């Protein structure tokens, strides 16, 4: 693995606090994930692919934006791997780059309706932009 890629994998492991080697491959994280059908790569694959250094596919994954941060995978993992933290760290590796914000302020007016709570807007900016 080229040095730069290896460094990115190490950074993702460090800022997530996740040790993918704890995983015993039971698949419970993906089985319980409410966004499973909307994902290309699933929570258990994030754990496995970060461990193998296959980071490129994850950086381009739509799952980064469909993870609901509901913490079902975190709560139900029998090995306390916490896949949601890993997905968030990979998302940060993307949106912390210049020009890579996934959600931009000029998209917002088209999405507003009169009942949309501020909580949703604050969440979307925090999750999808830097």
């Amino acid at each position, binding site marked *: 693995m080229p040095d730069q890629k290896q460094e990115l994998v190490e950074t993702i492991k*460090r*800022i*997530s*606090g996740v040790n993918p080697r704890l995983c015993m491959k039971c698949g419970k994280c993906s089985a319980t994930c*409410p*966004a499973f*059908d*909307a994902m290309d790569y699933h929570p258990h694959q994030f754990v496995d692919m970060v461990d193998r250094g296959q980071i490129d596919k994850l950086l381009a994954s739509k799952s980064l*934006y*469909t993870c*609901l*941060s*509901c*913490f*079902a995978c*975190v*709560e139900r993992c029998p090995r306390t791997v916490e896949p*949601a*933290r890993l997905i*968030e*760290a990979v998302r*940060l590796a993307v949106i912390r780059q210049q020009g890579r914000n996934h*959600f931009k302020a000029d998209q917002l007016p088209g*999405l507003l*309706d009169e*009942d*949309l*709570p*501020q*909580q*949703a*807007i*604050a*969440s*979307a900016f*925090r*999750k*999808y932009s830097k």
Partner: protein
Amino acid sequence: MVFSYFPGCTLKTKAVELDRYTRKSAEALGIELRELPEWQCCGAVYPQAKDEIATKLSSVRALAEARDEGLELVTVCSGCYHVIKRVNHDMQADEDIALRANNYMKLDNPYHGETRVLHFLEVLRDRVGFDELKKKVVNPLTGRKIGAYYGCMLLRPASELDFDDPENPKIIEDFLRALGAEPVVYAARNECCGGYVTLEDKPLAVKRSSAVAASARAQGAEALITACPLCMYNLTKNAENGLPVYYFTELLAEALGVK
């Protein structure tokens, strides 16, 4: 009973009724909620990465202010509760985050997680007591079949939030019983409504919130209650074949005769 109170951004805007009914009910129960003089939006989602510091500071500020007032900090919104309580946990348990946050804040007295964070439901359960609450009900909600919708933010991760059993919670069912209503237990009460993804992938939010409504309906619920404005939005705007949804404090105010 006096508490510091963090209303949060949405309770001042789209969820004013959640705030209003909370204050009215608290007054009827002899609870003083003293709004923090200066508070800022908690950020709505907990920043999970260990190197996210600036995004945690508004919570630290609120927590330190409550500490300086010598009071416990009460929230009503599930999102605020989740974020502030988890940041508090970081300030207690993660030395690196605490050091860096305190370096930013330059407080006279550095903050290390001294404040206790309570959800208003915990105040009702642990400080007022559901038996005492029951005695104050003047307008019991007899015969009303209501499903408690917990969602995610109140329960998970239980290792940090310590709110209730994350897979088989009962605090809101007990609350409903105290009000004289009939709680309806259903499988999806602690599954996600879709949350903020309504802005990114609306069909996914429709699917999730519809699954919650269908699960509650199948067990005979006639209405749902929630503590979260975003759950309220998804369950009322996105759920197909949805149910009426109320904030828990609206039913509380009704039962206490102060609505």
